[in-house]
């Protein structure tokens, strides 16, 4: 069986998480993704830690192994004229070209061009710089995260960057649908700050309608008004934390279940979020006698959506066996790193399987792509390599 995007050719000259995640998804769905990397230096993901055994190396970064999985790699300095000429030939044969900022100055032919930039390619702030924390701030997502008595806090890692990459993949598929039907050239202009804003979600509309600011609320549900059901929060128990959530249809279930009938007093039921401290105190009494696994098992038994707060090691160790049963963390063999377990498919399709494969070595596919597909001679490669183009 082949992948759903089998036959789709993608050239990726982007750097960083957003472009990298976009093309990782396209590769997983079956597209042929060629990552075009600068000689010696490679994709910036290769130089971002953590590295295997904490020893920096262009082949052993976690972000690179994860996000470049399933792609091919060629080296090319597309900033010089002979490099640009080669890139043009690669793009001529492609369906999609993914770029960041600055994009290569080439004619993209019939390829959909997806450009991912911090604030978008158009608008007064197109030239503004951003990193994860700055894009999150600009999009309003950062300001909603954190405790009311402290500064706003950045969510873990580069989840805004990932989100922009996911949105870029969606935009790319939408543009391909139009190109395939109209034959017209398509461009996708992705803004990382807009991806952060999209994560604000319904709070934007709630704020517009009620005229209220949306205040950070710690682990508690954010941005809902009086009368919203509660809990939706993280509370401590004997061995860690539990995400506690009320039953959306039967708000009185929680009080009955944890034997705190006072929670079902009418004034409390009518405004649970307004009585969050009282709800938390009742929850804490119940949780203090239980560990995570017991608390969640008991709550789920009555269909209360409680979930254990797991650390990344516990996610992989998978005490409850969910990921093991689904084969979610396949062990992937890599010539430098060895066998490493990595996240598996985000999507499973009955007819078109996800492609699980390792990340390429820097320039691993130079010969296959330049000689095998573009028809260059091995001596051309040697000459270009000597000139620093490959």
């Amino acid at each position, binding site marked *: 069986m082949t992948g759903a995007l089998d036959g789709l050719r993608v050239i990726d000259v982007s750097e960083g998480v957003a472009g990298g995640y976009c093309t990782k998804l396209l590769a997983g769905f079956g597209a042929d993704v060629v990552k075009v990397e600068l000689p010696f230096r490679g994709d910036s993901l290769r130089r971002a830690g953590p590295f295997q055994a904490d020893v920096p190396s262009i082949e*052993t970064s976690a972000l690179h192994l994860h996000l470049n999985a399933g792609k091919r790699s060629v080296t090319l300095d597309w900033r010089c004229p002979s490099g640009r000429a080669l890139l043009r030939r690669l793009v001529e044969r492609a369906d999609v070209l993914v770029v960041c900022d600055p994009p290569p100055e080439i004619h993209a032919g019939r390829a959909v061009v997806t450009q991912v930039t911090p604030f978008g390619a158009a608008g007064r702030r197109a030239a503004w*710089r951003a990193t994860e924390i*700055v894009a999150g701030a600009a999009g309003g997502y950062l300001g909603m995260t954190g405790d009311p008595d402290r500064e706003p806090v950045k969510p873990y890692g580069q989840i805004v960057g990932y989100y*922009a990459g996911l949105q870029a993949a969606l935009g790319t598929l939408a543009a391909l649908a139009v190109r395939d039907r109209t034959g017209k050239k398509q461009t996708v202009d992705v803004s990382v700050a807009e991806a952060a804003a999209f994560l604000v979600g319904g709070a934007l509309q709630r704020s517009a309608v009620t005229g209220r600011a949306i205040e950070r609320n710690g682990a508690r549900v954010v941005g809902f008004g009086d009368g919203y059901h509660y809990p*939706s929060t993280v509370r401590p128990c004997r061995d860690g934390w539990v995400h506690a959530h009320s039953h959306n249809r039967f708000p009185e279930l929680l009080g009955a279940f944890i034997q705190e009938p006072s929670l079902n007093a009418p004034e409390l039921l009518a405004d649970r979020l307004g009585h969050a401290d009282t709800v938390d105190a009742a929850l804490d009494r119940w949780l203090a006698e239980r560990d995570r696994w017991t608390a969640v098992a008991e709550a789920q038994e009555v269909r209360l959506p409680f979930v254990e707060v797991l650390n990344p090691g516990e996610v992989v160790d998978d005490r*409850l066996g969910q990921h093991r049963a689904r084969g979610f963390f396949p062990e992937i063999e890599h010539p430098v790193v060895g066998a490493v377990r990595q996240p598996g498919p985000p999507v499973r399709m009955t007819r078109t399987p996800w492609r699980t494969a390792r990340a390429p070595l820097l320039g691993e596919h130079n010969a296959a792509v330049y000689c095998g597909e573009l028809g260059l001679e091995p001596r051309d490669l040697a000459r270009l390599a000597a000139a620093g183009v490959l």
Partner: protein
Amino acid sequence: MRPLEGVRIIDLTVAVAGPVATSLLADLGAEVVRVEPPFARPGTHLDVAPHVPGTPDRPYNRLVGYSDLHRGKRAVTLDLSRAEGRSVLLRLAAISDAVVENMSPRVIDGLGIGYEALRAPKPDIVLVSMPAFGRDGPLRDRVAYGPGIDAASGLSWLTGYPDRGPMNPANYYADYTSGVMAALATIVALRHRDRTGEGQHVEAAMIDAELQAVGEALLDYTMNARVQTRTGNAHPAMSPHGVYASAGEDRWIAVACEDDAQWRAICHTIGRPELARDERYADVVSRAHRRDEIDAIVSAWTRDRGPHEAAEALQAAGVAASAVQTVPELLDDPQLAARGFVHRVRHAEAGEMPHMRAAFTLAGAEVGPDAGAPLYGEGTEYVFGDLLGMSTAQMAALEEAGVARREHPG
């Protein structure tokens, strides 16, 4: 030309993640038909969210959460626990391209409207299921919403202050990431069907999409046996890096210094050019060692300035910086406005409502949001009458039997 013109999708989703998926498909031009239960049910109509102020009549048509997540869709009601309701659904499936659902696996299979049932009338149908933990495995029957998936993925553990406990990122990342993932998978599956004639069952489990976004923490554990924890606003390779107090109540600015040249630019911008030559702060390693000093230097400048003014000055010098924008500010943000990020769309009973489009613009294609959310049962005439060819009498019979409703039960 809209990207998904001519595509019809049946939307059986509830809560947030599923509706995020189908609202994006509607924005891209698909005709999305919501099939809702003919009785009032919290969660489906998001009637826990505030209402748009208005007359006391029909408040259920002015629910803010519903209005946002169901813009641009049609809506009918059908009781799928009854054979008559299922039979109408299957007739609708016969003229549709895809079905998106996020019930728990045992519910959809128990109702008898799973993939095998749906492909009987439409062999090339695409069914997209969005279970929380997966359609199989020991946790398949667990109930979880977005924040529960944030907890199960490690994201909540990793988010927060180093000296405090875990928290979810605001507004539930899992709902929004699995929602877009499911929309993407739907388009991918439809593309495959267009090329091969093959439909299929797509499983976009919320947890599986979410785990991608913490991939580096998972690999740090599988490669190095390190369990990462909360680091707040600190960055291992940047200093200054963080959120700094600005003039104004609860106002902040985010600043990230990516290299030494940017550090020198910061020194000049904040009127401390002598620091640019100071050996103690010359490179990122030394600055990271003196993180507290660096943060104090930056704060001394930011605290007397508005966050927007300070960000403009830093960006003019080539430094990544932005005001930590409040949600109301997004509605007036000049960059978002110039790019048409917020669409203002008229809703029949709630008035003009703001909706965010996806995080991209397409040159040469029209993309929504461009229509408001449907009123309760508003799509009945169109879907049952125009699409399925039911007569007025047949529609009345469905209502008489309680299988469908046009008027909310109140």
